């Protein structure tokens, strides 16, 4: 998985039949401190993430291993909202403060 920050939303009414419904968020890869850097992705949100939150992104065929995305044309999902990141014994990100 990669760490990413939720930076916005993507609305698309005309979608392939398999992936109607669901909330698509714009996320950007971030470092362990929650600072945005790197590519933008459109991710299907399965856990009710909000803007500014750091989340866990799963990509590729693994993105289809959930009840909602099983055999669907999806390759990027948010599978978790990050509360805390500890690196080398130090807490480098905490949900509220990290925003």
């Amino acid at each position, binding site marked *: 998985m990669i760490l990413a920050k939720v*930076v*916005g*939303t*993507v*609305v*698309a*009414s*005309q*979608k*392939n*039949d*398999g*992936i109607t419904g669901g909330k*698509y968020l*714009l996320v950007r890869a971030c470092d362990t401190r929650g600072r945005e850097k790197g590519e*933008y*992705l*459109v*991710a*299907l949100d399965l856990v009710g993430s909000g*803007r500014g939150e750091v989340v866990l992104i799963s990509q*590729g*065929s693994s*993105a*289809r291993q959930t009840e909602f995305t099983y*055999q*669907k*044309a*999806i*390759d*990027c999902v948010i599978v978790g909202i990050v509360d805390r990141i500890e690196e080398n014994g130090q807490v480098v990100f905490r949900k509220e403060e990290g925003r």
Partner: protein
Amino acid sequence: MILARVVGTVVSTRKEEKIKGIKFLLLEKIDPVTLQGKGDYLVAMDCVGAGKGEIVFYVSGSSARMTAITEGKPSDAAIVAIVDEIEVDGKVVYQKDAVVTT
């Protein structure tokens, strides 16, 4: 999924039997904030009837075979949505069919 703009079409008459009758569109990846093209192109199979100039998002890898059109076909990129609106940090940066006032 990755955001891109439909910038053209690709026609191939001599091709693998299984992918006959499928429309190929030329996509350019875009920066979602500036909407500028990143000079990074790919060819994707159209599964939603996307038109030139429209912003879409596509799936790649095995997920690209999870649509009725691309199932069981040698497809690793499929356009699955036409984007109506992109909002970044609370600001709408893109709206389909909005008159662009520069």
